């Protein structure tokens, strides 16, 4: 049986061997101290952590002092939303986000809503582009935070961050961006974009799982979620995991979008060229606005679970991996207006550093072979199975 083809890099990526080696070395031979300790071992660990912090900060073009290490982007999103809203002096604060955010933002927004926060969910058009005009109409003195993702994790559509940032600046409202899917694939300049908070992950760009960071612009009020230590400016107390942080630092240094972006985009175009000629195939999301590494495609007249079993040698996601566990049609595809049947039969292909043109060609060949086979079963199926 041929080796499976991994095209699920938006869910997680393989650890870069150089990162693995560095982490292993850190665990085996690295400093023995807690980075908060004042002795030599602690100072050595602290030095490694601060070097890694600088590596991560350089990728965002921000000051290292403005980065807080967390367990990952989900925690960062929670800290950004809950932390800023808790620090807000508004009597009835408002949070503006969009319907197509990651569940870690939407669920946090829902929890805040239960606590009395006025939550506004911006819609998107049929191609997954966030409605900027709705933001312009909605933002007000009560708005404590605007939160949008840079690249949609299901569709790959790049948000109109420059326009959103300009509106936020005009109204002096802080802007939070979940950049878990974009860093390393797209250039990201937090200063130029007017971003005040930015959630980061390591494992989405060939770093270790279980470590991430939140950029918090100096001077911005954020309340911590956890208490009991002074680490990370008291915003995220707890012993810092040195080996994970050094792994994240190297992963960020290696993830050069000027090199990776064009290569991934060539592969994504190759994939779409191979698929778009097949019958009943639809690209979800604005093609001109896609990030280099994500392609979301619906396959009409094929039931989703059957499609996934038929293509079980392709490691891809239906919608987002987080949604997959729930066995529900992806909320993002529903927001685009797709029927449940079409949302169900959608696959998200996401490419990474170790994806090759051969992988793409094999994936296209497998899909080209399985689609007609599955559609023999549904030749006379009613219209709802295909629209």
């Amino acid at each position, binding site marked *: 049986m041929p080796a499976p083809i991994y095209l699920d890099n938006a869910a997680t990526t393989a650890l870069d061997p150089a990162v693995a080696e560095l982490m292993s070395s850190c665990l085996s031979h690295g400093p023995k101290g807690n980075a908060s300790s004042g002795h030599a071992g602690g100072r050595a660990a602290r030095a490694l952590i601060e070097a890694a912090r600088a590596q991560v900060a350089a990728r965002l073009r921000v000051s290292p002092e403005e980065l807080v290490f967390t367990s990952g982007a989900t925690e960062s999103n929670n800290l950004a939303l809950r932390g800023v809203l808790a620090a807000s002096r508004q009597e009835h604060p408002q949070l503006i986000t969009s319907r197509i955010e990651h569940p870690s933002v939407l669920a946090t927004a829902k929890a805040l809503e239960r606590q009395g926060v006025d939550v506004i969910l911006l819609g998107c058009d049929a191609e997954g582009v966030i409605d900027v005009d709705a933001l312009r109409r909605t933002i007000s003195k009560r708005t404590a935070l605007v939160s949008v993702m840079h690249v949609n994790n299901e569709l790959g559509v790049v948000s109109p961050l420059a326009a959103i940032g300009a509106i936020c600046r005009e109204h002096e409202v802080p802007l939070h961006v979940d950049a878990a899917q974009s860093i390393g694939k797209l250039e990201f300049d937090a200063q130029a974009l007017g971003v005040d908070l930015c959630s980061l992950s390591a494992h989405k760009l060939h770093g270790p799982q279980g470590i991430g960071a939140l950029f918090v612009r100096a001077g911005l009020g954020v309340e911590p979620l956890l208490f009991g230590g002074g680490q990370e400016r008291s915003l995220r107390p707890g012993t810092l995991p040195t080996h994970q942080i050094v792994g994240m630092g190297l992963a960020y240094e290696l993830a050069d979008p000027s090199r990776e972006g064009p290569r991934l985009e060539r592969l994504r175009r190759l994939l779409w060229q191979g698929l778009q000629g097949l019958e009943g195939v639809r690209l979800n999301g604005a093609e001109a606005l896609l990030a280099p590494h994500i392609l979301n495609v619906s396959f009409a007249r094929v039931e989703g*679970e*059957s499609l996934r079993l*038929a293509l079980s040698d392709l490691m891809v996601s239906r919608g987002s991996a987080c949604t997959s566990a729930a066995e529900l049609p992806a909320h993002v595809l529903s927001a685009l207006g797709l029927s*449940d049947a079409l949302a169900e039969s959608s696959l998200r292909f996401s490419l990474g550093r170790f994806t090759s043109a051969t992988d793409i060609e094999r994936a296209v060949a497998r899909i080209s072979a399985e689609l007609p086979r599955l559609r023999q*079963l549904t030749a006379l199926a009613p219209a709802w199975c295909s629209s």
Partner: protein
Amino acid sequence: MDYSSEVVRRFGSPGRVGELAKDLAGVVAGAAEDRSLSVWVRFQVQILAGRIERVRYQVYGCPHTIAAVSWVAEWLEGSEPEALAQLDVQMLAKRLDLPVEKMGKLLRIEDALQACRHEWKQTVAS
């Protein structure tokens, strides 16, 4: 989702898929669907001299449903027409090791067979 070896085998090679020729004698058809369960099933059954000669089907559904329809089509061939009313979905679920949440889909298979039987009864009566 885990699948039994029988489900995987039948999903990969379901057999009897398609349509019977329009001019064949003794052919009845029946379909059933449930959009909320993402399932649609259509059987064509050729009944000659009190015996089910041939079965063909179309199905939109999950691998369990496809495997179940494949099994039912095979089981029907060679049976008496009354078999159309005798599908034991519990037995079918057990035989294919289907998860309990798929039972609703099996009931749609049963409905499609009942629709075939209804058409056959009408044919016989006329």
